[in-house]
């Protein structure tokens, strides 16, 4: 580790669950912790439905409405590194190297005896479980049968037939590609640094209180003078994934993405400008 920051950042994991985790990042700057947060939200690639070819749609929802709903369905992206971005692929439109196809075909048949029976529920719920993927590693997250994602409701006689093309992407382009549903990020729960300005009616303490993370810090002494040199030290980070990846993988992937960006910039800097400065005699 570099000399500047006595030993470098430390991570302490508080909890790890199937689709969420909590950890504390210490001994680093706010800018680094914030970069991690921003990359987890917007730059970790995942798979999401990006093109929908509708063959038949006699449901009550329009084609574009259904296409939009399909785009929002999280797809398992454990194996996303294997797939290329379409813009980097050699194909012209899409191919198995840069996309995964998912098919959906639901036709609700009419049973005339049932039709007139008010006690039978004739509504067919089309869910993410009806999406059949050609690649088992990229399939709707919610296929646990208990909580599938509703796409559209159909009545007897209606039909929906379509083909989806899932592509690799990042949430910088569209939020559907974000691996996380939320990232909680907190530092300085007692607001000692006065980075927050609370809107209050009468009493700040009464109206706002302190977060659970305050248990790890010492409360403010009202007589203590304001330390204008103080810097945030402990970052409480909590993330919840869409189920497309493991939460620990999202964090690790985010850090490697940061390194890749930096490495790319270094190559470019080395190629183009080292000579530039050498011309000046350096």
């Amino acid at each position, binding site marked *: 580790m570099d000399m500047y920051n006595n030993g470098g950042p430390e991570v302490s994991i508080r909890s790890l669950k199937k689709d969420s985790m909590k950890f504390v990042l210490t001994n680093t700057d706010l800018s680094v912790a914030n970069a991690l947060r921003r990359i987890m939200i917007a730059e970790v690639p995942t798979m999401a439905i990006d093109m929908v070819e509708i063959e038949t749609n006699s449901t009550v929802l329009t084609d574009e409405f259904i296409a939009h709903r399909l785009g929002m369905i999280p797809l398992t992206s454990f194996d996303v590194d294997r797939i290329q971005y379409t813009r980097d692929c050699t194909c012209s439109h899409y191919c198995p190297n840069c996309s995964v196809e998912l098919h959906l075909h639901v036709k609700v048949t009419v049973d005339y005896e049932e039709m007139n029976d008010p006690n039978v529920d004739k509504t067919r719920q089309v869910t993410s479980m009806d999406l059949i993927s050609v690649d088992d590693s990229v399939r709707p997250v919610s296929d646990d049968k208990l909580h599938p994602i509703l796409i559209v409701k159909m009545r007897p006689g209606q039909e929906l037939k379509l083909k989806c093309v899932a592509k690799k992407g990042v949430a910088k382009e569209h939020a559907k590609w974000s691996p996380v549903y939320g990232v909680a990020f907190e530092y300085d729960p007692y607001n000692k640094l006065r980075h927050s300005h609370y809107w209050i009616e009468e009493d700040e303490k009464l109206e706002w209180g302190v977060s659970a993370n305050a248990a790890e810090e010492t409360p403010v002494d009202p007589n203590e003078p304001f330390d204008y040199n103080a810097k945030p030290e402990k970052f409480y980070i909590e993330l919840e994934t869409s189920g497309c990846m493991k939460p620990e993988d999202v964090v690790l992937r985010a*850090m490697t993405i940061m390194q890749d960006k*930096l490495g790319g910039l270094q*190559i470019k800097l080395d190629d183009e400008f080292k000579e530039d400065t050498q011309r000046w005699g350096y």
Partner: protein
Amino acid sequence: MPSTKAIVRMEEDPIEIDTGKVTIVPGTMTEPQCATFCLQDEDHTLGNAVRWTLMKNPEVDFASYSIPHPSEARTNIRVQTSDKTTAVDAVFKGLDDLTDICSHVIQSFQAELAKGEFEYEEETAL
């Protein structure tokens, strides 16, 4: 999303690596110790963190970043250094230091995962 490619020659097959787009804003490098770098397709994520590592370098007299226009995907980084180094070298070192910090986070995170001293919930049926 525009990106440039560099072919890196190694023992085996050449690998393509995404290189960032960096330019020096014309007229800002009046001497080797100062320059404004323009990073294409980068934002606060990298800008602020690089600014911090630059300022950590004792040879850097001034470092700052700005996003000149919200609808243009580019970030400017201004660097001024002492005579002991150059702006290009300082930025190179800044990027290096930030890479080390990222490695350290990864190592620390993986060590914590291996230790397993946290609340854990077994994977439910899927």
